[in-house]
């Protein structure tokens, strides 16, 4: 048998590209290549671990991507293949690809881990997306902290002349909405402030950066795509369910002393993934899945349900960006919810009337329920009506996310709310649990 060159992967008989290295055997796929915390994997180490990106030709990989069933791990869980195809077919002009690592969710850390430690896996995915949709330009949209690692990685690839497209870094603002796709386009084109825009019926997939079809894809989705390109759709589907295949990066808060990023099998109950027994569950008051744009689920439901996007939605939540926060029993859940809703109100772009007015009223109602329940007119029952006033009425989905957070909290903490309304607020609650960035803007300071 002829020695196989490391510089070009082979093409198997069925026409699909294959990797020169065996796939990772277990549930650690993306993180199987992760090194010491903080240290980025060099290009040599990356090629050693994963082999080069197989030379897929455009449409062929789109078929493989469709077969894989990969869904977007940035928050929306939209089918990745469908998204790439709609960009590829959008028009005559050359599209633009954005690797989105802006991760505005305060509790989320998985994009940071990926982009800082496995920049080449993310860049492989971005380059693969560019060749698949016919783009000549990739932007890597990340926070300042990731710039050194990404700059080094781009430089390493440039020296080897690895990629057929240009790759540039765009620094994301420190805002909750920084990663929202129309806001990403605003940042790239230098619009000030870099807020979401109204696109009507013409999504940025058709008309984004400079009027070009624009693919904004979360860095984790791109990293999964880079592995699918090497090991195939069939391998990808060996883990997970038909609708939610593969693994997912979770940022777990409240399970261990420090928040941890773990890679979990989709379709497996969270209790099993996190090693939590029914006894352990007693010290957990409720579970926030999907971050501040996600939703609360009762502990019993959360630990038992198979971790899939479909199951999460049945409970009024979403896997979203993969945050799993286990709320300890000693904190006041309603004051946690109120703090987060006030933060989210302040993080609104301040552009759309229903969101500006509605979130202010909603934040005020949640603040009353948490700290001054006797002031809340109409009781807890009045709050879902306020949610209905903001849902579906913004240029972006920010108000919908806040409404989901609030509605799910009212369901999971219904008894707690009744206690507040009957006996007053919790006395001397434990220190705040859910993280709020110190840079969060105060009310009114836009």
């Amino acid at each position, binding site marked *: 048998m002829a020695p196989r060159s490391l510089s070009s992967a082979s093409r198997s008989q069925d026409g699909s590209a294959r990797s020169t290295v065996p796939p990772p055997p277990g549930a650690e796929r993306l993180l199987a290549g992760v090194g010491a915390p903080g240290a980025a994997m060099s290009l040599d180490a990356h090629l050693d671990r994963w082999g080069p990106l197989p030379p897929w030709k455009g449409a062929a990989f789109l078929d493989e991507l469709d077969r894989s069933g990969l869904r977007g791990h940035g928050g929306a869980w939209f089918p990745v293949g469908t998204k790439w195809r709609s960009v590829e077919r959008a028009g005559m002009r050359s599209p633009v690809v954005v690797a989105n690592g802006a991760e505005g969710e305060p509790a989320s850390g998985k994009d940071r881990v990926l982009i800082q430690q496995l920049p080449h896996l993310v860049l492989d995915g971005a380059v693969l997306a560019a060749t698949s949709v016919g783009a000549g330009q990739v932007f890597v949209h990340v926070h300042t902290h990731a710039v050194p690692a990404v700059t080094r990685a781009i430089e390493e690839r440039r020296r080897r002349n690895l990629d057929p497209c240009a790759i540039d870094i765009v620094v994301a603002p420190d805002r909750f909405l920084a990663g929202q796709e129309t806001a990403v386009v605003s940042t790239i084109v230098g619009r000030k402030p870099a807020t979401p*825009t109204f696109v*009507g*019926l013409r999504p940025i997939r058709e008309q984004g950066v400079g009027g070009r079809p624009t693919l904004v894809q979360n860095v984790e989705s791109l990293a999964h795509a880079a592995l699918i390109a090497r090991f195939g759709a069939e391998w990808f589907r060996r883990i997970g369910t038909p609708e939610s295949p593969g693994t997912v990066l979770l940022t777990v808060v409240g399970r261990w002393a420090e928040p941890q990023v773990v890679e979990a099998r989709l379709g497996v109950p969270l209790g099993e993934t996190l090693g939590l027994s029914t006894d352990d569950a007693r010290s957990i008051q409720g579970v926030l899945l999907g971050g501040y744009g996600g939703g609360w689920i009762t502990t019993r439901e959360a630990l038992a349900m198979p971790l899939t996007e479909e199951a999460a939605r049945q409970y009024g939540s979403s896997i979203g960006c993969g945050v799993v926060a286990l709320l300890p029993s000693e904190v006041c859940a309603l004051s946690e919810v109120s703090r987060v809703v006030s933060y989210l109100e302040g993080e609104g772009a301040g*552009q*759309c*009337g*229903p969101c500006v*007015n509605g979130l202010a009223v909603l934040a005020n109602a949640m603040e009353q329920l948490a700290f001054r329940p006797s002031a809340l007119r109409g009781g807890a029952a009045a709050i879902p009506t306020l949610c209905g006033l903001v849902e*579906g*009425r913004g240029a972006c989905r920010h108000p919908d996310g806040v409404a989901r957070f609030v509605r799910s909290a009212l369901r999971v903490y219904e008894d707690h709310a009744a206690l507040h309304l009957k006996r007053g607020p919790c006395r001397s609650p434990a220190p705040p649990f859910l993280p709020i960035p110190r840079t969060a803007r105060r009310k009114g300071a836009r």
Partner: protein
Amino acid sequence: MKRPRFALVVNPIACDGHGVCAELLPERIRLDPWGLPIIEAGEIPVELLDHAQRAAVSCPRLALTLVKLAP
């Protein structure tokens, strides 16, 4: 050939709640507590198309658009 279908879409960034649209098309548009329009989703029935068109062109902020839906 099938006749084209239309819907009303408001640009919530441009809209500042003049309320003209709700006056011209109360069948499909009501106002929220802040005077901002809540538009009933979906296709505009044929008999209301003229009124919808008038509501769209009368918006002082040009925030309301009658858009053709995909066939």
